[in-house]
C-alpha cells in the first residue's frame, strides 16, 4: 500500500476486518451515508449495506449498550464515538457492563466490542472535540486501551482490536488523521507486532522520550531538534495504555538513565503518572534524574486560540529533557 493517511488506514483496516468476518458490524452517528465526520468509515455502508454499517440514533449509551447486546449474540460491533467529549453518556455501559461482563459471568460471556474514538487536540475546534480521556478507561479493569500513532499501526491495530475477545477502546489521534505513513498490508498475522507492545521508534542514548498517539510525532520532532544540538533521545511509542508495556520502557531507561513522558492529557492523574511510578520502581538504580512529565495542564481544555499553549510543544519537551540531563 502506498503512503496512506491514518484515517484511510483505519478505513482499510475496518474493511479488511469486515471482509474477513461477516459478524463485524459498525455502529455510530453519521458513519453510514456521510462516512463519519472524519470520513474514517467512508464508503463502507455503500459496500457492506445498512445492516452492517448502522447510522444510529444520537445516543452514545445506546450505541455501546446495544453493541454489547449484539456481541452477546455473536457479533463483533465496532462503535464510533464521534468525538472524545461525547463518550461520557456511554460511560456507565462501558464501565459497569462492557468491562465487567466477562468477570461477572466467570468467563461464560464474551463482549468483543471495539469503541473507536478520535482523541487529542490541536485541530482548532470548539469544546469537547479535543480531549484525551484515555486514563479514565485505562484505570477501568476489563478494558484494553490502545492508541496508534502511525498509519501502519492504525491499520493493523484496529484489526487486532476487532479480533480481541476483550473490549477495546481504540483511540485515534485526530490531528494526525491526514498525516501519511507507509502501511505494509502484506504481513501475515504472526508478523504483526503484538497489540500491546511498545515500540522504539528512534534509538538514542542520552534520555528516553515516551509518547503515545498524537505526541509521538512531537517526541520525534523534539528528538530531531535535540540531535541537532548533539543530544540523542530514544523515542518509545507506547501504543497501548492498558496494559502498559513497561518492560520496553524500562529496558530503554536502563540504558539512558533519564525519562520524559509526553502526553496531551492533563499530567495530573494522567497515564504518565503510571509510567513514572513504575519506572521509578523498576529502574530506581538506573535513573540519574527524576522522571519528568510533559502534558496538558489541569484545566478544562481551553478555547482553540490558546490550545497551542495548553498542549505540549517541542520547547516544553526539550525543557524537560534539559532538566533531566542537568540533574
Amino acid at each position, binding site marked *: 500500500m502506498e503512503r496512506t493517511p491514518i484515517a484511510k488506514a483505519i478505513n482499510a483496516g475496518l474493511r479488511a476486518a469486515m471482509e474477513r468476518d461477516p459478524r463485524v458490524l459498525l455502529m455510530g452517528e453519521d458513519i453510514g451515508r456521510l462516512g463519519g465526520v472524519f470520513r474514517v468509515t467512508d464508503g463502507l455502508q455503500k459496500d457492506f449495506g445498512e445492516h452492517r454499517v448502522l447510522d444510529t440514533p444520537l445516543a452514545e449509551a445506546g450505541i455501546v449498550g446495544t453493541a454489547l*447486546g449484539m456481541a*452477546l449474540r455473536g457479533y463483533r460491533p465496532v462503535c464510533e464515538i464521534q468525538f472524545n467529549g461525547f463518550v461520557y453518556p456511554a460511560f456507565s455501559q462501558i464501565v459497569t457492563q462492557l468491562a465487567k461482563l466477562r468477570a461477572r459471568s466467570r468467563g461464560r460471556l464474551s463482549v468483543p466490542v471495539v469503541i473507536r474514538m478520535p482523541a487529542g487536540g490541536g485541530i482548532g475546534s470548539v469544546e469537547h472535540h479535543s480531549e484525551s480521556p484515555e486514563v479514565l478507561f485505562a484505570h477501568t479493569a476489563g478494558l484494553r486501551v490502545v492508541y496508534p500513532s502511525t498509519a501502519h499501526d492504525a491499520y493493523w491495530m484496529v484489526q487486532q482490536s476487532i479480533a480481541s475477545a476483550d473490549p477495546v477502546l481504540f483511540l485515534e489521534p485526530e490531528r494526525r488523521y491526514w498525516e501519511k505513513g507507509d502501511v505494509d498490508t502484506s504481513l501475515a498475522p504472526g508478523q504483526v507486532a503484538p497489540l500491546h507492545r511498545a515500540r522504539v521508534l528512534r534509538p538514542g542514548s542520552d534520555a528516553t522520550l515516551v509518547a503515545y498517539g498524537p505526541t509521538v510525532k512531537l517526541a520525534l520532532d523534539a528528538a530531531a531538534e535535540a540531535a541537532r544540538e548533539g543530544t540523542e533521545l530514544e523515542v518509545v511509542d507506547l501504543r497501548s495504555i492498558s496494559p502498559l508495556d513497561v518492560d520496553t520502557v524500562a529496558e530503554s531507561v536502563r540504558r539512558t538513565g533519564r525519562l520524559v513522558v509526553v502526553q496531551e492529557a492533563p499530567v495530573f492523574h494522567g497515564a504518565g503518572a503510571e509510567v513514572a511510578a513504575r519506572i521509578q520502581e523498576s529502574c530506581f538504580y538506573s535513573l540519574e534524574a527524576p522522571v519528568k512529565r510533559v502534558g496538558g495542564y489541569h484545566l478544562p481544555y481551553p478555547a482553540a486560540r490558546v490550545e497551542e499553549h495548553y498542549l505540549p510543544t517541542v520547547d516544553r519537551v526539550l525543557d524537560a529533557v534539559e532538566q533531566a540531563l542537568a540533574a
Partner: protein
Amino acid sequence: MTDAAVGPARARGEEMVQLLDATGARREHPGYDVHLEPDEALDVLRELVLLRRLDAEAEALQRQGQLGLWAGSRGQEAAQVGAARALRRQDHVFPSYRDHGFLLARGVDPLHVLSLFRGVDHGGWDPVAHGVHPYTLVIAAQMLPAVGYAMGVQRDGAVGTGDPGRDTAVLVCFGDGATSQGEAAEALNWAAVYNAPVVFLCQNNQWAISEPVRQQSPVPLHRRAEGAGMPGVRVDGNDVLAVLAVVRAAAERARSGGGPTFVEAYTYRMGAHTTADDPTRYRDAAEVDAWRERDPIDRFRTHLRALGVLDDAAERAIQQEADAFAERLRAGVPQMPDPHPASMFEHAYAEPHPQVLAERDEFLAAWARHEQDEQLGSTVGGDR
C-alpha cells in the same frame, strides 16, 4: 378487598388487563384470553409456590448469616411465573436482580442464584445454556443490551420466519424505578426505531426502595410506550393468567416481526426491598395488608379449586415438593465453598494480560507468605 388498589388506576381511565379478579373469579377480556390444561395449571401453581418458598428460605438463610443479602420477589410471583411461561426455549431473558421466577422457570439451579447473594460469585448459572443473562444490578443497564441482543436476533434471520422453533423474542425485566433512567428511554426508542423483537416487562411493584411510583412519574408507566412509538399494556401483575396472556401476545408479536411491546405488570413488593431494608420507615402496614388480599398465589389457587383442577392431594404433592426444594437450599447454601482467592484473577480478560498475570503472581507469593495468618472469609458472615 375488592380491588381497591385497582380503583384509582381505573379512575384515571387506566384499565388493566385482568383474567382473574382479586377473589379468583375468572373474567373475560376482549383482547386477551388463555387456556391452561389441568396439568399445566398445576405446574403454574407449583412454580408460584416454589418461588415463594425460595424467598422464604433465602430470607431465613440471610438471617442466619448464610447469605450476605437477599432481594425478595414475594408478591411478584405471578408476574414472573406468568411471563416466563409465555416464552419459548430459544427466547432470551435479561433479568433485573429480583427476577428469580424467570431463573426457576428456565431451569437454573436456585443455588446458582443464591451464590450471588452469598457473595460467592455474581450468579453461577450459564447464561447461554439457560437463555438468561446475568442479573444486572445497575438500574436499567440491562435494557440496551437486551435491545442489542434482539437486533442480533434480527440479523440472524430469527424473526418473522414463521418457524416456531426459530423465531425468537427477547424479554427484558425492569422495575418502576428503572423507568426514570435515561437508558430506559433510549432502549425503548432503539427498539422502536429498529423494530426489534423485544418485550419490555416492567414490574411496577409500586416502590423503588423507599420511593413510591408517583415519585418516578406522573403518568402510568405503560404510557411511556406511547412516547416511544410502541404499544403499551397494563396488566394485573398479580393475575398469572393475565400476565401469561399479555406477555404471550407481546412475545408472539416480537417473534413475528411486529416489533416491541411495553408491558406494565401492576403488582406489589410484599417484602422489604432487600434484607438490608426496613420498609416500616416509609410505608404503611395498611397498604401492605390491602395488597395481601390480592395475593397472586391465593388467587390462582382459589381459581383452580373452583375449576376443580386443584384438590387436596395435588396441593399436598406441591407442598411436599416445596419442602424438598427448601431442604435442598438449606443444605446446599452452607456447603457452598468459597472461591479460591486467586480465582478473581481468572476472568477479567479473555486473552493473557501481563498486568493481571504479574499481580496474580505477586498475590500468590504474598498469600503463601501469610497463609498462616489468613482466615479465609473471616470478614464475611460465614460458616467456616
